[in-house]
């Protein structure tokens, strides 16, 4: 027999959205307190700590940035799988462990392959 879906409190979605909207409104409003500036050279150069000038932006590990986004997606999927464990069996927690562990292993492996683990 298929059970009925429990009713969803609309604030489960509206609550976080409300917080993000309020946060951005306050953030923009607070931004009126101070001045903003951007440009080239002088004080707009990244801080070097008295050492040589930093290399151009293109040399940074952009793969890491893409990977972080992928990681979020895969982790969300793993968490959704974990969410099924309300069933009376310990299969799903084990699936969660395997899924979560697998994701991290894959992430770490890829990071090393692309050289993103340099620090």
């Amino acid at each position: 027999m298929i059970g009925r879906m429990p009713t969803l409190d609309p604030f489960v979605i509206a609550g976080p959205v409300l917080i993000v909207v309020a946060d951005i409104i306050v953030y923009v409003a607070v931004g009126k307190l101070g001045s903003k500036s951007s440009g080239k050279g002088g004080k707009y150069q990244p801080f070097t700590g008295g050492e040589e000038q930093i290399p151009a932006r293109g040399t940074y590990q952009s793969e890491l940035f893409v990977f972080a986004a992928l990681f979020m997606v895969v982790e969300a999927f793993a968490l959704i799988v974990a969410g099924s464990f309300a069933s009376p069996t310990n299969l799903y927690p084990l699936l969660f462990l395997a899924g979560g562990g697998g994701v991290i292993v894959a992430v770490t492996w890829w990071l090393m392959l692309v050289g993103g683990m340099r620090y």
Partner: protein
Amino acid sequence: MIATEVAEILLFPGLTFFVWVAFLFDWLDRKTSARMQQRVGPLLAGPSGVLQPVADFFKLTSKEEIVPEFADRFIFFLGPALFFSAPAMGIIFIPILGTTAIVSNQYDLLFVLFIIAFSALMAAFLGYAAAGRWSTIAMGRLIAQYTGYEIPMIIALITPAILAHSLSITGIVQAQQSIWYIVLAPLSFIVFIVSALAELEKPPFDIPSAKTEIVGGWMTEFSGRPLAYIKLTKNLGYAFLSALAVSLFLGGPLGPILFTDPMLQAALYFVYFVVKLLFVGFLIFVIRTALARIKIDQAVRFFWMVITPLSLIQLAFIMVVWWK
């Protein structure tokens, strides 16, 4: 009804309340570390300097925001607001004035786990967007540390969920009426606190923002309002993770005495919750002051070799002994 719920989310016991708790945690943190180091700590703004974090916040917001030449302008400006929204969204799922949170769902713990991941990766994005030497080094360290503490933290958080047979924070709190889960799963509590120190970049895991090594870490290039928001977010995360520990391991707002009057009972729930929150916060303040920073390879190794096995041992024990 809707107005009440909106007020609870935005004002009390939601966002505004927790922002003040974040300021209080900042002050307590500075005061505790000062006392342990034979210093005085914040003193001038407000009684015993309690308003110093608020003064610091407004001082920073009124300063000039400088965008570095190579920075990604969109993320640089909007990122701090999104970074702030991560712990801010999580707090509405924490029961404070009763055994039910402002907002609850049968899977809200999963959402909270996602928020924790989002927060760490948002910090990495901000470090990358700043495009500075120090912030890029810090971002690499942050991601490396993240791959170490994420799994044990998730396992530690999922252990009370398995004990309660619920992935809802409200459900987990309600399941602790007879016994707190810190008694049944003490290792998970320890693992969570250690992982929380890494998530919050507190010593000994303040490697991504190590001041004496890489200037200000991934925050080096930020100034003015973005920096004020980033600092506030870190303190909000402090309060949020402490509140999460209270809910999942210390019975949330549950306590020994019950009143029949609902208003009095709500007040008592609030008192219980705040006392436990301060206890967990104080635990973190003391640990982070007492320990010195370790190196990134030591931190990652520590999480993989010690903390992850500990979390798995506790989980296995729970599944063998307590699973019904």
